[in-house]
């Protein structure tokens, strides 16, 4: 599934990002990398959504959200080593 299909107040883990390099790099610099946990704050609208990752809230456009593959995070928490 992709991030845009996620539910509010659920935490997901990023599996892969399929965007053009520049955009992917910007997301990575913000900490949105493979394996990073993302919590959806508001995904009610058809277009952009708001999420939180690495301690900060962001608004993400629809195309970005649709190109981030995630999987459900069973514990809803960052796995600790």
């Amino acid at each position, binding site marked *: 599934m992709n991030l845009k299909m996620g539910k509010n107040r659920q935490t997901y883990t990023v599996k892969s990002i399929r965007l053009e390099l520049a955009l992917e790099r910007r997301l990575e610099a913000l900490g949105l990398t493979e394996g990073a946990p993302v919590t959806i704050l508001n995904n009610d*609208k058809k277009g952009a959504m708001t999420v939180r990752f690495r301690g900060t809230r962001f608004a993400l456009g629809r195309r970005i959200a649709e190109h981030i593959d995630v999987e459900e995070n069973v514990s809803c928490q*960052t796995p600790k080593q």
Partner: protein
Amino acid sequence: MPNSKTVNVGFIGNPNCGKTTLFNAYTGANLKVANWPGVTVEKKEGMTEYEGQKIKLTDLPGIYSLTSYTMEETVSRECIMSSDIDVIIDVADASSLERNLYLTLQLIELGKPVILALNMMDIVEERGMEIDLHRLPEMLGIPCIPVSARKKTGLSILLHAVLHHEGLTGQDPLIHHHAEKEQQSSHRHNHHNEYAMVYDDMIEDKIDILIDRLTAENPDLPNKRWHAIKLLEHDETVMKQHPVDLSGIADRSYEKDIINQKYDFIEEIIQEVLVNKDAKAASTDRIDRYMTDKYLGLPIFLAIMAFVFFVTFTVGDWMKGYFELGLVWFSDLVSGALSSAGTNPLLQSLVVDGIISGVGGILTFLPNIFILFLALAFLEDSGYMSRVAYVMDDLMGHLGLSGRAFIPLLLGFGCSVPAVMASRALEHPKDRLKTILVTPFMSCSARLPIYVLFSSMFFGKYKMLVCYSLYLLGIVVAIAVSFIVSKLDGSKAEQTLLIELPEYKSPNAHTIFIYVWEKVKDYLSKAGTVIFIASIVMWGIMNLGPHGVVSDISESFGSIIGKAIEPVFAPVGLGYWQIIVALISGIAAKEVVVSSCSVLFGIANITTAAGMSSMVEVLGSMGFTAINAYALMVFCLLYVPCMATMATIHREVGKMRITIAFAAFQLVTAWVFAFLVYHIGLLLF
């Protein structure tokens, strides 16, 4: 030990972390601060002194990382790496430590002395969090100084730390021996425990080999570890500068591994130093539930803007009354003094009818301007602005612009000049051009005096509604134009909004004061320069003709020029030569339309009740009604922006052709809309 050499300090940090506020606190400069990312686009410099030591401070654009993918990142990275910077002050928003530490780890790897300034500690406390200020520097290996840029605390301690660590200048990695605390760490590479950031064995082995290869290539290269890490990340700039053989070691980019391990380490740090972190942010989430709601978001935004204009008009008008009384008193005083001194009547007319009437008329709008900017400052500093980008993104997406482009448009309510510059934050050149084209359609504060004057004269109790309608019309035209342009050039909305939504905070009095004071100062200096000169020129045009001083105004230059263009403006209800001359003069600055009217119609103190009623009489006798007034306001809203804006547009787009085409387009748009408004108005009323 004061040193004759100036110490160069670079301020770097995430967008929106309070760098510029801190910079202002030291240098006394009043750079613009706003609670949304991307305000500082160029580096700014300032001087300060600490115990006799001269310190040069450089404020750099806010960045999230030291890669070189965006303009801001490249500017900041190059500056920090150069010999221009001796010590780095890494300004971190302590209330959002997790995000900010990522840049910190990258800075530490650069090898220059880094001092972490933990800003916004007051907010940390407000939220019931605590940061372990002993453990944090231990884990990072750099001094961590709590400061509050807003309350100006911790400032001298920070400079003390700068001077103390300046001696470490050199490009070797910062070495610090942390105690045997690595037991619980997932990063064990024991022969490297002098570094704050230690990667896993695979990466560290690769770093070691690359350092060997770099040494073989260039034995004197400073900070080889950083270069090795950048090579592993396949950083283009470093790969070009140091074409080391990467085969067998970095056949692919290890950037993702490196980023993930940095964030893993940050998580460890956060676990150890941040106490009570779940209390964090609850209030922002609660507010955002309404502000970013699917249905409520847009109405709330419109209501906030309506409230802003309501306050601007009611409170502003109330204060304006007193300014007008002062103006009448002053103008009578000067007029009396000049005639009793037996001054030449022509000179007396220049001073009283030209300068005082023109400049003074503009000054009476100061309260409205003041309140408008106070409200905008409040919105910006609270953190609401970036929510607007989110709320508007869907709508803007349908219209072919990114939600991010709405921020320049919103700034356009204040002044088009910074608004046009803010379009730099947009990545796509097409998006930028479109945004620059439509930004001047947003009703800037300079148009406010025109609306207030003409709506008060012709619309009585509906004047506020009329003004609000003009602001809405500006937004609608801006959006419609970008929609049509997008259809024409076939570009689809990118839907790639990516903007940080900062925590809400109670606006800071000092930040708001600086913001508003800057605007008021701009307004006053404009009144003293552009409007002053324009008033004199207007007076000259009205009182001089081809045969010298004229007694009949219809023989003046102004009348001759205006009458020549009258046919063009007649179809839009503006075929009055005085109005045409006022509109032309308004290109100098939009307020000049008002000051020119007072000079052109020979009405002293046009903004007072008496002045307005005599103006209505004069206009009425010419057949100028409320419909003409509305057409005039629409024309003023949309026509060619002021000279300062055109100069800015030219600087941003870089081509004279485009600048002229934009101005011509805006002129035609204004004419078309004024035409529609005028003729629809005639049909209806």
